[in-house]
């Protein structure tokens, strides 16, 4: 679906996932080098690293695929 100008709804979703993914990934990487004093359960799985990475990749793909001007619905 196209909206007011040239932005697809999926572009907004991609941008949201990309920004959130990068922030979570960054926080996870920081924790790798500066482990917190009080840790969550299963901290050793470093979920914020891989989950943040997955979100960022999916978000990036959506941003590129549905970038303004590409005419995709």
């Amino acid at each position, binding site marked *: *679906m196209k*909206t*007011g*100008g040239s*932005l697809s*709804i999926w572009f*907004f*979703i991609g*941008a*949201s*996932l990309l*920004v*959130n993914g990068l*922030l*979570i*990934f*960054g*926080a*996870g990487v*920081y*924790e790798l080098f500066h482990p*917190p004093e*009080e*840790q*969550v*359960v*299963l*901290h050793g*799985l470093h*979920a*914020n690293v891989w*989950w*943040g990475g997955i*979100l960022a990749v999916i978000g990036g793909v959506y941003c590129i695929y549905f970038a303004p001007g590409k005419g995709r*619905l």
Partner: protein
Amino acid sequence: MTLLFASADASRLVRLSTVDLVIIVFYFALVLAIGFYLKERSNTGEDFFMAGREMTAWIAGLSFLSANLGSLELMGWAGAAYQYGILAAHWYWIGAIPAMLFLALVMMPFYYISKTHSVPGYLKLRFGEGSRALSSISFALMTVLMSGINMYSMALVLKIILGWNINFSIWVSSLTVAIYVSLGGLRSAIFNEVLQFILIWAGALLIPILGLADAGGWGALKTRIATNASAEYTHLWSTLGRFDDNPMGIHWTGIVFGLGAIISFGYWTTDFLVVQRVLSAKDLRAAKMAPIIGAGFKMMVPFIVILPGLLALAVLPMKLTGEAQAIATGGHSYNEVLPLMLARYCGPGLLGLGITALIAGFMSGMAGNVSAFTTVWTYDIYRALIKRDGSDQHYVSMGRWSTIIGVIISVGTAYLVMDFKSIMDYVQALFSFFIAPLFGTVILGMLWKRATPAGGFLGLLAGTLSSIGMWAWVKVDSSALRYVALSAHARDMAENMYRALWSWVVCVLVTIAVSMLTKPKPDSELKGLVYGVTDIPSESYVTVFHRPWFWASVVAVLFLMVNVVFW
């Protein structure tokens, strides 16, 4: 982040890091930006109230589901799963899937071909002004109450998790919704609902994944639940033979006929909150596909809602209780299951995304109620009963103002429901007051051309009054439960199921009886409204894989499979 499980600081469960706060602020900025961005596309009534009727099946389908994913879905059903076990999944499977498929294949053609703006609008075309007035006023009342419940739930969770002031949470969230819905209308609500749907999954999906790893897999989870609670908590159907054999105190007839046949059909096929999203579809095939897409995703929602509740039974170190006991003892209530699980597994960043998922759920539910209220108020109450000759611009302006006023009324409602003992039971009671009888009226209107305007109106009125009457009867005399719910052992949820069933039966019987005694409309006035006198467009021009019935069959088979697997 600092975990404070069972710690001295009972007023706050977790402390957000800077990155968590950035994620939450980014979310609020994005939804507001979308509202401002779409303002230029909401200048006509068709744009503001119906999103221009140009949504694809995917957008309409995800929005259809997201509008239902309010606070009650995320918080309430996770708590219900902790309290009642996997029985809570009935509200996602038999309590949703058949009705959604029925809406798509049977009812959608009449809603769509009639070009109605709303469900009360359909009743006006089929039964006349009386039925529309009754259903629109009851719907408007229900939506503002639901919206208020959403707000209260969100404020409560933010207070529990973050220690935020409850008034601050209510006003910030409600003003945000008021701004983006009043600016961009239904298009903005739908657009944000799709975004919120994705964020809900992104933020909530990790809990069951990490929870299963923590519990040692599904088999180990069942063993631990059997130890901590009861083995009955992991069975969907096998414990429903007797009222006192299962944690919910319900019989299978209540689930099948009360929930599966009446409440769910009433909600998913006649509640304008969800039907409005499908009416915005670009064509009839998209309108039929949207509920089927929604049903496919609905079947997966228990993974992020019910499973965390079950996992909490196995892995949380503390015992959760009802709201009143939790307040009295300083413990945690059932409704805190998701926040507790978030705090258990989510570190910096993930916690912010999880909180954003909860807020997104609350806001999508709230926006859904507000946008539906605005349409029904403007078209079915204001234009029908107060000012019939206004311009299109006048009604758009009324739509924007009624959005803001609806939010303010909802805020007042939020303060009212603060003292109510159980959010879920309250909502179920509301459903049975209005939704179950409405389903009786709409389904007879669509499938039985002999139904008359007098029959439709009096049936709806009798069904609604009988439901309220049964509710009041049990409140005044608790021994009446054995008549209303067929058992003195029935719990609140079971009582709601049966009350809905009886009110639907009353509605249908009165509609049929009155219709047989009054003059029906001629066929020429029923075209596009009733089965048998409406030409349904053929779908032979598309391949089998593009036909709604094919995908409905796929979803139906999957639905049967999950019920057998978790029997």
